[in-house]
């Protein structure tokens, strides 16, 4: 009996320990998680004011790091190797989990961490060739002595941090998800840059457009999806002369017979992801020097996308924001210049229909001959399960991307489409940033840009020689007009990308007469530019509004730039409502609908948090577009199409009020434009009432929009900032939508010494247990900026400086 008791009780004790020591599905292992010695308690941080000295293997000379009160490191190194080594070390110290998570995601390795629910995404990233692209980029980097030095030093710095970690020190996400960090590598730096390319340059609707053309014919498609919009104010001011002799553009080839109504799951362009940047020249500024501003809009997340840093070595003194996982300063300034970026939206992803010889997919037909297919086996490790092996077939165009997230789909799709994507090119963006970080003038800026590949960016520039410039810049394929607007024929060499637009012939303008340069993801140029970059870009409202305001401004200061970044004027509403509202017959509206109309009529077009008009207009805009087009374009079958843009819709309302498109083909009576306007307005009111109750403060824009800055792990609300009350919206200069918005705001005054301000919605630390995790969000929400401390030496005095760290 005694034996039995001893055995049973001991077994129970062991069982309890074992079950507390392992995760159960998505429930983490509670023993190690709750232990104050190794668990989450160890991640709780307080702000330290004391100096530190850290011994590391890897620096060539001691590195001094000064931290300011925003926990931004200012790195002073005696050589270039050490400055990047320290950047890697410090970034990993604050953001290791984020860096690794993002590169795991890019590499199609999330299933290793979270199990088979990530399998569709992993497959997709493997099939689009993210790792293949990163390998190409790595080859380019390692072939360039400078890029090689940077990226190796940075990686060594990250590893110097990782090698110091005991399980108790792991960032909390490792403890919650139950895994541990692995060594960093050069490939991971490349993957990180590919992830950015994927975010900014992977949208495509070639398939949707092909389906539209197949269904409605070329004439209707050309009419509804024109290659240049009605309302536009391109980045390069119209009238700018092209001072080069263009290459011959390839002759256009017929693309009429490709589409066969394929259902393929491909993300469309996200119109909310876009950005603003501009620079005003010396003649317009109060300081007598240029002022530059930039706010890149991305999905808002925690830990934040950006990491502030100042890097000082004998060859540079650059300050601004970096991407955790990539060396150098991505957006920022140095003593002489400042630069910023917005996304170009070039068409750098095309799909080619491949004809395989037989089901074995060993050869494909191209230019009259059979060419070999290269296979790449992708082994996807899945947490708690057997590995999944995926074969990806590569042609010279690129990998065959099949429908993501479906098993057994290959049997249904005898021949797939190959993706020709800029991310597979061996480009060396690090070299561009290396030069920019050290640039002294416009010539250096032009040299730097020539190295840049993807994702193509509108690089805005200003220097203390009082030059300003902007260039939609990247590696652009040399295409015929509309090449890639529709699916392409992979057997016809005339459909291949035929070469590249020479970097020197990328659109660019320096010191235009209007005294400013600006971009907001709109068209790069007017149609006079001799090359084809894309047929669509972001809607022009932000760009037009920015240009209107900049044109009107004189004696510009940092504060007027800050106010422009926070501009809430809804230009689309201001253009559209005076045309839409008079058509509405108010007598057909009842109660809340009539009140909604009154509110909308008296709205001042400001998308501020309390505006009910903004809520009604935004929802109505969406419902109206659907009401006009969806009955024809989206019939609920498998045929994936898309709707015409709002720009085109507005033209229809303005100039073609009798168009047959207004009729709902699913109903017997023939609807007129007025009918559609009223019915969609009623539906809007009903939708909003259903969501928020009777019209009132619950309809306020800030509440309706409820901007959320979410942790990278879905569902971790405790580590997110939800319902952030901020105005703005899609198409507004302050482009804060439900999930996206200005991920960084910066204003730089050039001059003998630059003066800069900036803020991002997050904090320097990626640790939810740190006071610096989201300490900048409130300042950002209020539209304020904080000083970007710019030091000349480690001994400089500044009120914001907190403490020193020495790495030796």
């Amino acid at each position, binding site marked *: 009996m*005694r*034996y039995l*008791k*001893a055995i049973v*009780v*001991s077994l*129970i*004790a062991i069982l*309890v*320990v074992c079950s*507390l*020591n392992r995760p159960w599905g998505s429930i983490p292992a*509670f*023993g*190690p998680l*709750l*232990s*104050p*010695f*190794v*668990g*989450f*308690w*160890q*991640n*709780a*941080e*307080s702000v330290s004011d004391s100096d530190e000295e850290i011994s590391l293997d890897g620096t060539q000379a001691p590195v001094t790091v000064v931290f300011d009160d925003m926990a931004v490191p200012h790195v002073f190194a005696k050589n270039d190797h050490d400055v990047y080594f320290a950047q890697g070390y410090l970034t990993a110290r604050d953001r290791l989990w984020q860096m690794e998570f993002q590169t795991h995601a890019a590499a199609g390795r999330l299933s290793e961490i979270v199990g088979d629910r990530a399998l569709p995404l992993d497959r997709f990233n493997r099939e689009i060739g993210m790792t293949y692209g990163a390998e190409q980029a790595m080859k380019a980097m390692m072939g360039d002595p400078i890029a090689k030095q940077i990226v190796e030093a940075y990686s060594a710095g990250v590893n110097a941090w990782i090698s110091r970690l005991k399980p108790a020190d792991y960032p*909390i996400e490792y403890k919650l998800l139950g895994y541990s960090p692995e060594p960093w590598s050069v490939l991971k730096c490349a993957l990180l840059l590919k992830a950015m390319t994927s975010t900014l340059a992977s949208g495509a609707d070639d398939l949707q457009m092909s389906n539209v053309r197949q269904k409605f014919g070329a004439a209707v498609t050309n009419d509804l999806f024109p290659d240049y919009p009605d309302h536009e104010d391109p980045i390069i001011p119209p009238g700018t002369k092209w001072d080069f002799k263009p290459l011959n553009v390839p002759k256009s080839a017929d693309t009429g017979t490709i589409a066969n109504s394929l259902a393929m799951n491909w993300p469309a362009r996200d119109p909310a992801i876009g950005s603003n940047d501009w620079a005003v020249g010396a003649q317009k500024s109060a300081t007598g020097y240029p002022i530059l501003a930039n706010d890149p809009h991305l999905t808002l997340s925690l830990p934040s996308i950006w990491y502030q840093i100042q890097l000082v070595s004998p060859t540079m003194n650059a300050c601004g924001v970096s991407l955790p996982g990539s060396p150098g300063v991505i957006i920022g300034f140095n003593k002489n210049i400042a630069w910023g970026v917005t996304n170009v939206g070039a068409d750098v992803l095309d799909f080619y229909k491949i004809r395989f010889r037989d089901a074995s997919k060993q050869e494909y037909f191209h230019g009259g001959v059979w060419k070999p297919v290269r296979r790449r086996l992708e082994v996807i490790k899945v947490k708690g399960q057997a590995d999944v092996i995926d074969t990806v077939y590569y042609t010279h165009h690129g990998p065959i991307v099949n429908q993501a997230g479906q098993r057994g789909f290959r049997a249904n799709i005898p021949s797939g489409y190959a993706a020709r994507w800029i991310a597979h090119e061996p480009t060396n963006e690090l070299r561009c940033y290396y030069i920019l970080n050290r640039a002294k003038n416009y010539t250096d800026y032009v040299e730097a840009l020539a190295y840049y590949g993807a994702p193509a960016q509108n690089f805005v520039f200003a220097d203390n020689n009082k030059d300003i410039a902007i260039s939609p810049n990247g590696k652009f394929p040399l295409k015929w007009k509309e090449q890639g607007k529709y699916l392409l024929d992979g057997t016809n060499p005339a459909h291949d990308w035929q070469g590249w637009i020479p970097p020197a012939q990328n659109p660019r303008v320096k010191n235009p007469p209007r005294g400013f340069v600006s971009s907001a993801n709109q068209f790069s140029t007017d149609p006079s530019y001799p090359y084809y970059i894309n047929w669509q870009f972001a809607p022009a409202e932000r760009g037009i509004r920015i240009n209107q305001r900049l044109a009107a401004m004189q004696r510009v200061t940092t504060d007027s730039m800050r106010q422009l970044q926070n501009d809430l004027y809804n230009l689309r509403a201001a253009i559209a409502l005076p045309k839409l509202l008079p058509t509405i017959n108010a007598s057909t509206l009842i109660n809340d609908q009539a009140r909604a109309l009154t509110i909308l009529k008296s709205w001042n077009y400001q998308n501020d948090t309390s505006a009910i008009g903004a809520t009604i207009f935004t929802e109505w805009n969406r419902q109206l577009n659907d009401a006009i087009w969806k009955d024809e374009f989206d019939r609920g079958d498998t045929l994936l199409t898309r709707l015409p843009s709002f720009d085109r819709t507005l033209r229809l309302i303005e100039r073609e009020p009798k168009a047959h498109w207004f009729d709902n083909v699913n109903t017997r009576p023939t609807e007129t434009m007025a009918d559609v306007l009223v019915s969609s307005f009623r539906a809007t009111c009903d939708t909003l009432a259903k969501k928020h109750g009777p019209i009132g403060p619950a309809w306020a824009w800030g509440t309706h929009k409820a901007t959320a800055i979410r942790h990278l792990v879905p569902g*971790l*609300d*405790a*580590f997110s900032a939800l319902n952030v009350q901020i105005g703005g919206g899609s198409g507004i200069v302050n482009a804060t939508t439900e999930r996206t918005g200005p991920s960084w705001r910066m204003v730089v005054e050039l001059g003998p010494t630059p003066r800069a301000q900036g803020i991002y919605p997050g904090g320097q630390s990626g640790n*939810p*247990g*740190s*006071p610096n*995790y989201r300490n900048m969000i409130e300042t950002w929400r209020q539209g304020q900026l904080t000083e970007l401390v710019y030091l000349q030496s480690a001994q400089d005095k500044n009120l914001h400086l907190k403490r020193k760290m020495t790495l030796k």
Partner: protein
Amino acid sequence: MLQILLIALISLLAQLIFPWWSLAIIAFLVCLWRSQSAGRAFFYGFMGIALIWIGYALLIHLRTDGILTGRMSQLLFKTTNAILPLLVTTLIGGLVGGLAGLSGFFVRQVTVNQR
């Protein structure tokens, strides 16, 4: 009382070096060495570990203004009350310590009687 103190101190040292579950071995060994009854053995183990866990957790909580305690409470218990993470930490630690202590007592019963 001596047992509680011993379990607390030795397990504290053990947990600084070894995995968290080393606390169970300490509680087990101390109660194997000396424990009067099943109830007391559980009590020694429970109190020894609970004291250490709540003490250390509370120290961290106070030193860091409870920022993470609040967020973890939100994450695990859907409330921002910092008491819950502290309480659950104490209970889980105590439970493991208590069960290990209890095992120590019963194993002691077997070995003592064989002599």
